């Protein structure tokens, strides 16, 4: 669904801009309206519907993607801000990394899950965060209405444990 001209001051001017960014490792070039949300570009223009919309106002985290390695709410990010950056979405995630989360009951309906996974993997990639924060604090930006969070928190902790075990194994 492409936004049209006419939303801006001069209806005769085409305000669209072309941007390029890296999406899940591949180069993307696309013309976007300056007010178009990254979430909509991903879902409706590029067909990556794994990223979900839960609230459209930065509260629920269902739309979490990474930009340059940091989890962000893609409903709050104008697509133009992705220019020249590296965007990673749930579609790029290796399903094998999700095993501990599946086994701990981290997902029920699944609507929050893509966002939960993007935050969870970010925690796993930066275990030093746990020196200053708890998993519960770090996950607080992702609302889940089904699990009550125990399954998510345990899954993250078990995945951390598994990562440590692999690291400890002699090469």
């Amino acid at each position, binding site marked *: *669904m492409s*936004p049209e001209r006419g939303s801006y001051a001069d209806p005769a001017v085409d305000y669209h801009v072309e941007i390029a960014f890296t999406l899940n490792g591949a180069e993307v070039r696309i013309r976007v309206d300056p007010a178009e949300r990254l979430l909509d570009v991903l879902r409706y223009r590029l067909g990556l519907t794994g990223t979900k919309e839960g609230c459209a106002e930065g509260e629920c985290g269902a739309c979490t993607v990474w930009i340059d390695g940091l989890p962000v709410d893609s409903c709050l990010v104008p697509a133009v801000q992705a220019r020249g950056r590296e965007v990673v979405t749930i579609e790029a995630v290796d399903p094998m990394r999700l095993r501990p989360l599946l*086994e701990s009951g981290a997902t*029920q309906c699944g609507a929050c899950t893509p966002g939960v996974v993007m935050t969870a993997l970010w925690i796993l990639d930066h275990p030093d965060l746990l020196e200053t924060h708890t998993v519960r*604090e770090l*996950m607080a930006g992702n609302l889940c*209405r089904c699990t009550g969070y125990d399954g998510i928190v345990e899954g993250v902790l078990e995945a951390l444990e598994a990562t440590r075990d692999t690291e400890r194994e002699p090469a």
Partner: protein
Amino acid sequence: MRSPVPRGRIREVRFASGLDRSELVVVDHRDLTGPNEVLLIEPDQPVLAADRVRHLHEPVLLLAHPSREALRRAVAAVEIVVDPEPPVLDFTVDPPPGGVQYGDDNVLKRLSIDKGDVETALAGAARIVEGEYRTGAQEHVYLENQGMVAWEEGDVLVVKGSLQCPYYVLKALGHALGRGPDRVRVVQAPTGGGFGGKEEYPSLVALHAALLARKAGRPVKLVYERGEDMEATTKRHPSLVRHRTGVDVEGRLLAQDIEVVLDGGAYVTLSPVVLSRAIIHAAGPYACDHVRIRGRAVFTNSPPYGAFRGFGAPQTIFANERHMDVVAAAVDLDPIELRRRNLIENGQSTATGQVIDDGTDRTALLDRAVELSGWHEKKAAHAELARRHPWRRRGMGLACFHHGAGFTGSGEVVLASRVDVAGLADGRIEVRSGNIEMGQGTLTVFTQIASEASGLAPSAIALAEPDTARVPNSGPTVASRTVMVVGRLIERAIEDLKARLGLPPDAGGDRFAEAIRAAHAERGEAPVGTATYQPPPGVEWDETTYRGDAYAAYAWAVYVAEVEVDLRTYTTRVVDFVALQEVGKVLNETLARGQIQGGVVQGIGWALMEDVVLEDGAMANAQLTNYIIPTSDDVPPIRVTFEETPYAHGARGAKGLGELPIDGPAPAVVNAVARATGTRPTTVPLTPERLMERLEEGRADVA
């Protein structure tokens, strides 16, 4: 396009001049080809308001456009002009003159339960303890909003979307569009949470999408944004419950006199059945010979309240369990001891006269939960904290409760749910049911049940997509009935399939698969086994007197909360939570535990923070920014324990458990806050503002 006022007459629909109407599809009530009614219990709710509106945000007009931007412009250019009338917004008082909009007195439904002789028993009581309790509306906040896609396939109108009850939607479509069941088809898409919010409401969304698709002559997608979903869709019924309880000197319950009032909103929808479950659970899991319960659901000019996990029981259980602590204090008994003296023993009966004899030891459950929670050790520590600390206060609270599984009374018999199991050409079997997955684990547990009953590997079990063209009506996915009732039908349909193939009931695995393949080779079509609901023997219910076996089985639970209250900010934090329950056989530990934890956290939200602010009868804080639900950092780990007494008539011995966990947290948490602060809160959500008022009142009393 929705009503801008809570009550009034529609004068006109105004389109701004200059609006580009090319490609814009406009639908109003005149586009219906059947009665303008959302078919459910009563025919009072229109699909699209025709001449009058009865609540804010009531749907009046539908617009569709290929471009979302153009649609937004069109919405801004259309105005629904209504001559407003004074709305009725308070369900707790009689309607003012001119305010009656349903029947003679705005009462949507009245129900009552009578056991023994309450007045005589009260006259002989050592103490009579009274209390009044209120609960607020609660928004479901399923993470995925309401959404539906509709299109025409030849002569058939197809609707696919986020929903719990394909056959409810099918009936509503057929009725209002004037189409036979062979010309409508409903398919459930994997659903991102429901909690009851997708029980009745999707019929309306489906009708709207279908009307637009029919007029547009092309597929139409209708997805709510969060704000619209919160403003316009159903919520948990607000309630007012009054108790008058007679006890003897030992704290034994002599009489329970209970009045239950629910805010039904502007249309009947499911309120009669919500009220039914509310009153049946109102007296709690206690033995009392004299019980009188009067219930009513009342009309207001609010968007209709509807199904929400627990279905009326959480409201009356909050009142009853909060009241039990008040009764305990009145007779100077420990709240645990008061409950121990009154819990139903096997052989005793509930308020409807249902004799409970299921082998569960409810007193043992109570003792075990208390022990798991560390109640006695913590009590001393809390007293010490209160002496030492200027503003930190801690307290423990508990709730004992039960929840009936499946439809109430004769509901399951009336439903007459059916499940089919077909043998596939390659020897696998396909389970065909209309029960859906919305996160609660239906797909996994149905696979387990079918695998165990057939002796086939899980990989040899296929589950048909819930598509009304392919699956029979196995009833709605509600009321904690999926595993217990429908799961049992799967077992019986598999037995039937075996019998049709000439196999003994215990034949399974390879032999079963071989017989299926042979049947295919012989007849060239799939052999199908089928099962239709049969009530367990001895279950009797009288719908007119509300006497008898209200539910075939109950789950039992004792929940204990520990809270910390900050006397500077009046915020309450739940620091520990023990959820102990007896739910029959647990079929999948991970999923069952997840249901309990999720339900408990939803209940903690309702208890402390989920405050639906009503203006003109509708939700004013319709944003996740200011309707707060718990995050991972707002709740402690929920400590879940199951006791299992296998239930003979549920699949693999299971009873229902999905709704149970929403019942207990509010009373357990509020009882804990009462203990921590020495106040008597009677309302949920107990927000910091409400707790502050309570504490200020308390100070005024002392002064």
